[in-house]
């Protein structure tokens, strides 16, 4: 989208009435509109999976912010996605306790099975693999989340069981 298009973004043609009403509910709690910036990004992402340039422009306009300022916020937070992601995001813990318990090997296994490295999405758009700060389940290391589900005590057999229809031929794209 070029600058001229951005300026002309019509908020209501981009964001749905449902999204706007949820953002309005957040605006009721904050003393100025930009205070709801992260909430608004999360609301839109929950519906669409990620934050496109167009979504970002529309949210910024609705919150009386510059797109640049909102972009600075959106790119700061690791759970806001500025690129399309698969239907489920795999948040893979590579922090210290999981590392001690062998997570590097599990990561390699996932890459072999799904054909994707960090930041990549499987060709069928099912999964995006992303590293995440310590998931707070270190007593059950190695761990990861697939969508909303926490998977613990990971080993190669569990990876095979989780992704039964995948094989090494599946290619990744970024």
């Amino acid at each position, binding site marked *: 989208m070029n600058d001229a298009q951005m300026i002309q973004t019509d908020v209501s043609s981009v964001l749905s009435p449902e999204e706007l009403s949820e953002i309005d509910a957040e605006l009721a*709690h*904050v*003393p100025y509109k*930009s*205070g*709801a*910036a*992260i*909430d608004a*990004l*999360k609301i839109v992402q929950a519906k669409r999976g990620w934050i496109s340039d167009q979504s970002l422009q529309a949210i910024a306009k609705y919150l009386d912010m510059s797109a640049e300022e909102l972009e*600075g*916020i959106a790119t*700061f*937070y*690791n*759970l*806001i996605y500025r690129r399309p992601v698969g239907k489920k995001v795999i*948040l893979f813990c*590579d*922090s*210290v*306790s999981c*590392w*001690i*318990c*062998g*997570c*590097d*090997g*599990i990561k*390699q*296994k996932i890459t072999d099975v799904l054909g994707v490295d960090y930041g990549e999405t499987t060709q069928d758009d099912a999964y995006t693999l992303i590293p*995440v*700060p*310590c*998931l*707070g*389940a*270190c*007593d*059950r*290391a190695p761990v990861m*989340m697939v969508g*909303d589900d*926490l998977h613990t005590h990971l*080993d*190669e057999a569990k990876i095979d069981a989780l992704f039964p229809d995948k094989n090494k031929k599946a290619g990744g794209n970024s």
Partner: protein
Amino acid sequence: MEKVLTRNIGADLQPTDLKAYEANGGYQGLRKALAELSPKDCLDVISGANLRGRGGAGFPTGMKWSFVPMGDKCTPGHKYLVCNADEMEPGAFKDRLLMECDPHQLIEGMILSAYTIDADISYIFIRGEYVVAIQRLRDALAECYAAGYLGDNILGSGFSLNMYIHPSAGRYICGEETALINALEGKRANPRAKPPFPQVSGLWGRPTIVNNVETLCNIPHIIDRGADWFKTLGVGEDSGTKMFGVSGRVKNPGCWELPMGTPIRHILEDRAGGMQDGLQLKGFLPGGGSTDFLTPDHLDLAMDYNVIGKAGSRMGTGTMIILDDQTCPVGMVLNLIRFFAHESCGFCTPCRDGLPWTRQVLEDIESGRGRAEDLDTLAYQVSYIGAMGNTHCALAPGAMEPLQSALKYFRDDFDRHISGGSCPYHSHTRQGA
């Protein structure tokens, strides 16, 4: 030992609902405070109990609260009580348990804390990945509003409080309280300069208290049963109980409520079951990824803030990470420095540029490309980045703690990487591959 924080947490790890929580003495502390105690009375009890912050710093909770302007000394407007439930310290997994299994204990603690500082709005700032805890807290909040524990005129006392859950959009730095406040305000989570301190000017410029989950979970019990009772719970110099955890290659990793001052040996050997077969203890981080290594020589120390401090480390979160003799200490420190370099907010130069530089030096050493002078570089980085005052917040100095202590205790391992041109633990790094 009497279970306090985990009294409602059973082996099945199911959440305690309002009915079960009340049946086990829940909300008695709140009823007592609203009926009999003024906010000043509550503050005196908490101060007298010598409760220290369980998030890592160990700052006395009563003193923290005492800086909040009260009554005529406070300009008209909101005051905020924020629960820091952004558990992201590498190796820390205690708050998850408290929130998933006994959400009402946290909520009661927050209501009492808000009453003490006269806050009318409270937030639970929780990391977005804690999906189960978020849902259980939402369910518990709904129960509280329905029962009159939250909202207007709580239990007919005239005190009103609203509570909101704010699932975070991520980043480790949000655990720093002023960064957390910026995140709550919808901004990038860069820490703020202090002063002003949040107690005076925090969320939206108003007086704000930010406390860790475990700290707040202690409040109902202290108010209900008194400061003297709380002080009897510790077996060392600190008061109360503590959630201690052990992770790494031990037989029975986990998290247990034990008296403050419990010897490290008891936690590691009796609770965690000691090392897995074939492994020896080489060292451990006593309280999460940003604390200094201790060694088997320290096993008989008490887990008290000052005792661990005098030994050259910090109690931090109380969740220990174990280094065994077949895991590379350089690799472990590299993993931690990689984490902190990635999680730097980028605001100040020593952190934003210094941590990646440190990471690069460690990567060289770990991969066998290290040179003898690299150890001088690491020592310089520790002294410069690790010095409070050179950085905007405590993230980078915290990152230097495992590195500086690894250089002290495991110097031979660094030397062997450099002289041998490879990692002597290489077989471990390939494990599972």
